[in-house]
């Protein structure tokens, strides 16, 4: 019943998920998920990136079954685990599987290890159906993969370092062989150096075990490094879900573009160009760019990143002359400051080779800009 799965069966498919929190006391409701869609295929690592309070943790908890959304559907491994009320009212969902029946593992932000059990018992907690010797085997397997030396097995969680605790949490979640692993800000409790180390290790591990995983973070670097699929979440919605480079290079919304790094937004008007064929172009204060309009005569925005200006020290067709006000050496590049010719905004461009000129010529290149 995996609706909408394209060809290959998806490992996780969330459709139109909506959820409100009931505020304390007065019967107000606060929407936290406003129609969320996402899809992950087996073995993929998905990442939800977004500022705190955007609803990403709620989404994770809904998938795990700790929150009951108001509407929408969730499929895990092709099996429906949640089907919301179809009638549209705030009735009971048509189907909701208890968390323990979903086969979804979760690694919590604070690990939530059981302090009264030693490491071995923590890891084998979810392996009730196995015989003691099978459990022992599983602990060995996981501990080896996660580099937890056997002398740690009899220790208790509070005797372990942060990194070790995280490995245990991961081992515990992986032990029962979940169809999907959820990770809630997995590295936020580690110091930065350890974070980078654990990140690589986690990725290798998940790939080696062919685990499908979805994790949330607010750290861009982490998201880019770990994810096969990336979603930018803001205010209860996923603005764009796709490959990481798609989000960076072909953002579908200005918010997405602005989230990933600095850039400047320019006003642009659509104009028909005078030529033999009917074509259009965008007019900005930095000249013209060809454009295939979907709607005519609409005011648009052009987004350009500081490293994506088309510029030269000599004049070129369509280039606009600007005065360099200041230059700063930034290591890998030099940052040149200038005022935009019409709006008189302070802007800059980043260039690896820099320039010693007082004036340069600036323009927009078709392939390096985004139009909204």
């Amino acid at each position, binding site marked *: 019943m995996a609706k909408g799965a394209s060809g290959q069966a998806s490992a996780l498919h969330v459709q139109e998920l909506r959820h409100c929190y009931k505020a304390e006391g007065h019967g107000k409701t606060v929407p936290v998920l406003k129609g969320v869609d996402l899809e992950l295929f087996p073995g993929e690592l998905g990442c939800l990136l977004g500022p705190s309070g955007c609803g990403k943790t709620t989404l994770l908890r809904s998938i795990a079954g700790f929150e009951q959304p108001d509407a929408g559907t969730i499929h895990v491994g092709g099996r429906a685990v949640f089907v919301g009320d179809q009638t549209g009212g705030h009735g009971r969902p048509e189907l909701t599987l*208890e968390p323990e029946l979903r086969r979804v593992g979760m690694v919590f932000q604070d690990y*939530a290890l059981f302090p009264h059990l030693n490491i071995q018992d923590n890891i084998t907690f979810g392996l009730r159906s196995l015989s003691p010797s099978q459990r022992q085997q599983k602990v060995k397997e996981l501990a080896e993969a996660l580099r937890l030396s056997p002398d740690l097995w009899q220790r208790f969680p509070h005797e372990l370092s942060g990194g070790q605790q995280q490995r245990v949490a991961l081992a515990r979640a992986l032990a029962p062989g979940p169809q999907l692993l959820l990770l809630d800000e997995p590295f936020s409790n580690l110091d930065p150096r350890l974070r980078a180390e654990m990140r690589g290790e986690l990725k290798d591990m998940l790939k080696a075990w062919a685990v499908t995983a979805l994790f949330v973070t607010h750290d861009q670097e982490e998201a880019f490094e770990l994810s096969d699929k990336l979603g930018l979440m803001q205010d209860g919605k996923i603005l764009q879900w796709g490959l990481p480079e798609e989000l960076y290079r072909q953002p579908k919304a200005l918010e997405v573009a602005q989230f990933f790094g600095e850039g400047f937004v320019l006003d642009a008007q659509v104009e028909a160009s005078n030529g033999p064929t009917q074509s259009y172009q965008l007019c900005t204060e930095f000249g013209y760019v060809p454009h295939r309009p979907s709607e005519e005569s609409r005011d648009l925005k052009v987004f350009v990143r500081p490293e994506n200006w088309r510029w030269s020290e000599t004049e070129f067709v369509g280039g606009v002359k600007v005065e360099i006000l200041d230059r700063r050496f930034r290591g890998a590049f030099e940052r040149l400051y200038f005022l935009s010719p019409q709006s008189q905004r302070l802007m800059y461009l980043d260039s690896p080779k820099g320039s010693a000129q007082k004036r340069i010529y600036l323009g927009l290149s078709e392939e390096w800009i985004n139009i909204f």
Partner: protein
Amino acid sequence: MPATVEKKVPFKLRPLKYAFVFGLLVLLPLSVVILSWLQVDTELWRHLLEHQLGFLTLQTVSLAVGTLIWTGFLGVSLAALVAFTEFPGRRFLSWALLLPFALPAYVQAFVWVDLLDYSGLVPTFLRQSFGLDLVSWPSVRSLPGAWWALSLSFFIYVYLLTLGAFYSQGRRSLEVARSLGYSPWQGFWRVSLPLAKPWVGAGLLLVLMEVLSDYGTVALLGVDSLTVGIFRVWYGHFSLSTAAQLASLLTLVVFAIVVLESRLRQRQRFYEQKASGLAGSGAQFRSTRGLRLAAMIFSWTVFALAFVLPMGRLLWLGASVQDYHYAWASVFPVLLNTLVLGGLAAVLTALAAFFMVADLRLRGGGLRSSALRLGALGYALPGAVLAVGVFTPLVLLDKQIHSLLSGWFEGGGGLLLTGTLWAMLLGYFIRFLAIPLLSLGSASQNLPGRMDEAARSLGEAEGGLVRRLYWPLLKKGLLISLPLVVVDVMKEMPMTLMMRPTGWDTLSVRIFQLTSEGLWAEAAWPAVILSLSAVVPIYFFLRPLTRVGLRYG
């Protein structure tokens, strides 16, 4: 180098240097009960060993075991229902279940005697309406009656601590267990409950402490516990030293409990985890109708039995008094006494605690911090032990003064200290110093030490630190402790009973006297005043503790 610095300091708070002595006062009753063994009344001890001690111990142990089982059951099950299920009134009950705390155990006991004794309300009603005369009606004045009354007043210790544990640890770990394939019920037994053990244990130890130091309830219900034995030896055999020796046995047990409790608290620290992220919204058991109904009936029944019914009966009794003017006129002076005593004790302990904490910050050191910890131990001393421990040295001192003065003039001035307000205040001081000490101590620990260094580098001396930093920053904790001490003084019974000077009855003593003569209606007014004033600190200081987990719920 330090010497020159010292000279430059313009104003040094010398008296403050000795503030730690307040904390050492607790050693007075302790050393008295221990030293009492230097002189043993063999005759009396033989009598005690032959006829009394075995029975007293047996009764005390059965009293403790029964109450612990009941409070454990009530406290844990209520905490679990409130933390993990959803039922009508859950939110309200989560804090309202603390209200029975307002009724001291001896009040709880007398209401139940009034209701269930042979001539009480319920049996009389059954006789008159249904002709049901239960000759073998189980008497409230019995061991099970004491279990009942004590459990209804003390289960709150277990409830409150366990609830906190469930909110902070249990819900979260239940989620983990569920993501690993456990049903809520299995997860509760395998994880949430075992995790809460240190807190349940700490709650039970507090209950045990209360049970051991209780006098009013057991005296009223005719259960011969160790405290009753101390009273009996004092008043029956007039042997202060033997009473002190019995008290030392009780103290030994109590201190064993204190040690155990602090052990558990260390365990709690390992179990505590940062509860970051959402603490789980709402109830974790998707409640079936049956569970919901059972949870509702059980919780509301306990609440009704422990608070609504006794409080209602008290109000009813109070309202049925014929002459309101007379009732008020007889209770007013007692209330005034209580407030004066409570107020004095509150102000004195608060100031002493402030000086101790300030001194500790200024000078540090092992002596001062152990004095602080010692001072907080006074709270664990049973009232009867304190009474014996403070009374004995004062009697000796009085005798010395008397013989000294007799040399100068006829009569020698009588007893100057024993049986005065000062003796009693000393008792209160030792017992209740813990309250401001704990509240100020934790407030002070939360202030960064660098703050003091910053002030010093800006040219402030000790006096300035106290005046411009400690006082404004710790004032709030100090003010909070005042009503807490007042209410505790109001509820305190055995020590006041033993030490009060003539004419200085407090509400609790008055209630005890009236109820031991079976004058229920007359006891109702002071009991109502006492209970209602005790509701105030519960609402303001204990209620917030139960709201922590509800914020997301």
